[in-house]
Each structure stands twice: as structure tokens, then as C-alpha cells.
């Protein structure tokens, strides 16, 4: 499905890309993400919140990329909003209750604080856990497998 022209003139042609899965992807600056979400939901009819996740791009500045996914019930199509952030991001939970746990999960695994979230605590890991595991800077945390042959190598046993 081609990108509808209302989207084009709303966000400008350069902000919209269409990746392999033909879901229109709109790059939005961090400051105006709440406005963009409200606009996408109200004006263009993508009312249903589907998914929010973060991608750690390890770039110098604005390291994390927040990816929002919305779905429109009448035109049966998805739309994706992307924004770049380093540490903080405005929370959309007050307007979109469905994003509550998603934001808590992104905070828990990436360490991105969502300003304005009603209860931003860890959701997956134990409360006294240090570190944010899904960051690419953190190791996988795997333990060497205790084969008898590797015991000399790792000095275990």
C-alpha cells in the first residue's frame, strides 16, 4: 500500500521511509513524539497501540532508537514511529494506557527513563539487579560450560 498523501504532507517526504515490510516508518524528533503519537492516533485513525521497543545502535550520540507501532482498525494497516534518544524519553502512558508495561520493559532492559510514567520500576528482572542487560555494551553473561576437557582452560573443578 503506498504511503497515503495525508501522511506525506503531514510529516514531510524526507521523514517517511518504507522498509522491506511496506509499513510506513516516520522518523520523529524526540521532543515532538507525544504530539506525533496523538496525531497518528486521532487524525489518521491508527488508534490501536501495538508495540514499543528500543534498538541499541551504539552510535555516538542519541544511541537508542525507540520504535512505536500502531494499527488502524478501519484501514487494516500498521504505521511505525521512530525517534532517537540517549537517556530519557517522554512517556505516552497517560494518553495510551496500553504502553504502560512496554515502557517499563524498555526501562528495565535498556535503562531509558520515561518521564511521566505512573510507576516506572523494573518489570522483568529482580528489583535489586544492577545494569541493563539488553544494551549491546553488556555481555551475554553466559557461563563457560563445565566440560571436563575445559576445566583446565577455565580452571574450574
Amino acid at each position, binding site marked *: 500500500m503506498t504511503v497515503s498523501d495525508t501522511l506525506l504532507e503531514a510529516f514531510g517526504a524526507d521523514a517517511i521511509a518504507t522498509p522491506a515490510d511496506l509499513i510506513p516508518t516516520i522518523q520523529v524528533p524526540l521532543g515532538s513524539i507525544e504530539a506525533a503519537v496523538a496525531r497518528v492516533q486521532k487524525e489518521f485513525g491508527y488508534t490501536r497501540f501495538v508495540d514499543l521497543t528500543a534498538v541499541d545502535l551504539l552510535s555516538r550520540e542519541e544511541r537508542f532508537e525507540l520504535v512505536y507501532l500502531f494499527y488502524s482498525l478501519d484501514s487494516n494497516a500498521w504505521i511505525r514511529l521512530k525517534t532517537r534518544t540517549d537517556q530519557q524519553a517522554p512517556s505516552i502512558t497517560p494518553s495510551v494506557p496500553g504502553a504502560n508495561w512496554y515502557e517499563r520493559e524498555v526501562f528495565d532492559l535498556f535503562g531509558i527513563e520515561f518521564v511521566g510514567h505512573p510507576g516506572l520500576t523494573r518489570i*522483568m*528482572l*529482580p528489583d*535489586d*539487579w*544492577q*545494569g541493563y*542487560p539488553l544494551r549491546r555494551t*553488556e*555481555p*551475554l*553473561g*553466559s*557461563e563457560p*560450560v563445565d566440560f571436563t576437557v575445559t576445566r583446565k582452560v577455565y580452571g574450574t573443578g
Partner: protein
Amino acid sequence: MSTDDRNGAPGYILSRLEDWARESSIWPVTFGLACCAIEMMATSASRFDMARFGSEVFRASPRQSDLMIVAGRVSQKMAPVLREVYDQMPEPKWVIAMGDCASCSGVFNNYALIQGVDKIVPVDVYVPGCPPTPEALLDSLIKLKQRVAANSRNVRHGAQTSVGVGIAHNGTNDAAHTA
């Protein structure tokens, strides 16, 4: 009348009776965590029917159970819960580590899982497989029954952890375990 000397002394019959009683009705506590829990339910369902071995009743509370089948992967957040449930089970008690995740955290060798449940609780029988087929679980139950029939009082724990060890819970992966 000491009940656990085995050499035909007066307590012999009673201890044989005791072993037989314990071996023939081992009640597992419902400790289904992940995919192995579905196979554990399949084992207790109509086709594989764990009831033939006396383990029909899955007790919800640890107070009334003898066996803990750790069916699934044990995450760092679940470790103290597992230890708590194990401690609250009355002696004599046994543990079956069902599946690769419980035995050595199989497919997932990462920060989130306890690498093998024997870092927290002493394990008696390890069941390979991901998830192990119901026949494999029944086979492990039979092996456990043979061990219990031999000597149900002196419970030998094959694990590295002695009773009552605390779990280092600062989130690091190498949970304290004594050799």
C-alpha cells in the same frame, strides 16, 4: 526399636514397610515453570498417566508433598522462590530436575537463568531432553522410586549445594554454591 538398621534386626520389617509406603506414593508439588510443565501435565493426563506410579496427586502446597519436579527454566527472580518452596517441604524430600533448562539451563546460557537448578537445591534425578518426552519423565520417576525403595530414610542429596545455603542475590550470575 530403632527403625533404620537394615541387617534383619527387629526394626527391619518396619523400615521395609516404611520404604515401600514412601516409594509407592510420592506426591509431587506443582512446580511447573515453562515448556516442561506442559509435558509434565501431559504425563499426568490420560495417555501417559502418572497415576500408575502413585504420583497422581499434584499437591499445590509444599507442606503435603515429597517430590519437587523442577519443570522448566529457573530465572534469577524465581531462584529464591524455588529455594523457599524447597525449604518448606517436609523431609524426606526429593528433587527431579526435569529438562535441560533445569539441569544445566540448556538452550539459554545467559544472564537471566540460573545455570542448572543444582546450584540452589540438591537434585536427585536429572532428566535430559528439551522438553523430555513423558516417557522420559516416567523413567526418571521409576529410577527415583528404586532409590527411595532402597533407602527412603537416609536421603542422599547428589547435588553440590548443602542444605540451608543462601542464594547470592545481587544479580550476578555466579550464584554461590559450595562444591
